């Protein structure tokens, strides 16, 4: 599992947008795809997201993640839903051991595009936004200080823990614990590591809490400020309006279709 928020500044217009706009985009595009009755809209949104990823100069990562996740899950869901969905009525293919139904296939495709729209939009937001920028933007919206702390601290603490693990491994080696060698040796070596890593991290963290407290973590009733200012661009306002309108239009269209008017 890759554990890094590898934000690389590329100085694109997407990067300069307010993180809240990007969050709104995830919600608006994602929910639109989710409620719209057929997969076509989602497919369109996906193509749009790909274009955005090109503007943000991260098209390679975008394709890698979206296809890397999209292909296996499509196959899997086509298998599960296409062949075994109880909704299946219209048979489009007979594979011998099972029959493929149109309803299941459409349902599977719908789930896949919805997931991919969420995934893709989220990925775009994530890869074009520094986390402290995101937290600053959310603080502007009124995110509680403690919630912001949890996200930021987790991002910073996890790499520290991984570093600590390697120091502890060294000091165990110096006590005669063999940590190299085959897979079995490594499993055996990791178990005594777990204890000290966890215990010493817990104790360190208690001390770190002292620092927070003496620097006003617990102060109530103050509107907090951040050093990092959330990025803003002139496109934020119009985009917000467009995104909300888009969601509304999709909602109305969906309702109309549901009631058989369209």
């Amino acid at each position, binding site marked *: 599992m890759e554990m890094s928020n590898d934000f690389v500044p590329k100085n694109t217009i997407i990067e300069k947008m307010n993180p809240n706009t990007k969050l709104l985009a995830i919600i608006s595009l994602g929910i639109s795809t989710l409620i719209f009755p057929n997969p076509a809209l989602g497919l369109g949104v996906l193509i749009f997201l790909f274009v955005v990823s090109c503007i943000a100069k991260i098209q390679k990562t975008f394709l890698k993640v979206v296809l890397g996740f999209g292909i296996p899950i499509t196959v899997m869901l086509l298998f599960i839903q296409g062949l075994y969905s109880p909704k299946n009525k219209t048979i489009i293919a007979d594979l011998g051991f099972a029959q493929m139904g149109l309803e299941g296939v459409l349902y599977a495709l719908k789930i896949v595009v919805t997931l991919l729209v969420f995934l893709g939009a989220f990925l775009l937001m994530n890869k074009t936004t520094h986390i402290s920028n995101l937290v600053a933007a959310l603080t502007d919206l009124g995110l509680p200080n403690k919630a912001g702390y949890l996200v930021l601290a987790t991002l910073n603490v996890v790499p520290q823990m991984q570093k600590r693990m390697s120091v502890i491994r060294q000091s165990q080696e110096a006590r005669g614990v063999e940590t*190299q060698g085959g897979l079995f040796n490594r499993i055996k070596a990791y178990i005594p590591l777990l204890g000290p890593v966890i215990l010493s991290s817990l104790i360190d963290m208690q001390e770190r809490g002292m620092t927070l407290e003496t620097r006003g973590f617990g102060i109530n009733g103050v509107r907090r400020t951040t050093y990092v200012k959330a990025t803003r661009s002139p496109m934020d306002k119009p985009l917000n309006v467009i995104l909300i309108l888009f969601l509304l239009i999709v909602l109305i269209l969906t309702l109309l279709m549901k009631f058989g008017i369209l």
Partner: protein
Amino acid sequence: MKVEIKDLSYVYPSQDCALRGVSLVMEGTTPVAIVGQNGAGKTTLVKHLNGLLRPTSGQVLIDGVDINTHTTAQWSRKVGYVFQNPDDQLFLESVRKEFEFGPKHMGMRKEEIGERVEYVSNLVGLADQLDTHPFDLTSTQKRFCTIGIIMMMNPDLILFDEPTCGQDAQGIRRLRKIIQELRNQGKLCITISHDMRFVAENFKRIIVMKKGEAILDDDIEKVFARTETLKQCFITPPPITRVAQGADLKKTPFTGKAFMEAFEEERERRICQM
């Protein structure tokens, strides 16, 4: 015990060069102190002596055997390393278990382990704390606990990394006793320290490191007499020495006794001159 370091260089994976061609020989039982500013390469050097780090170039020989021939765990029988931060090295639920862990791993006999526990726990001052959880000890006691777990394994070479850090007067006295005891048992002890008073009181031979090089390696008197070089390495001699130097005494004393001798000598000389 003989440690040979031949033209040792080490470059970290981050491309930072931590050691640049260090050559040293340490032999016998005379304890050696390594001093120098933070980041001078002291810990990096010492980590080569039990194979925690492997030379980028050059060679490290322990009793004539190349360090690269064994793993760190194998070397731990011969070379004991007490880490700077005790929390990294302790992981069992009582001091006794910590003490017994290494020797059990090595296959030491049960009776011998028992004897050593008694001997070592008395030496490091934890005889009454054997059933305490190491994390419930004070920071000083924790440090002595890590010293204890390494001594339990009875290695021929012991490496201390900043043992004086945060120690009070009693702790310093106990450390001194431990270093003497190791010497009496014929062990070689190499210590990294910032505390010049401690160094002056306990070590004859000093190695001064600066930017990855061992720039001085000599008897303590000769090392502390090189005031200019030491200044460049950001090392200040112990208080007694500084007073002697400040008052222009000809000798470089480290102990009260030596100070008085130097003082009286200088006084005689001046009286004769008058």
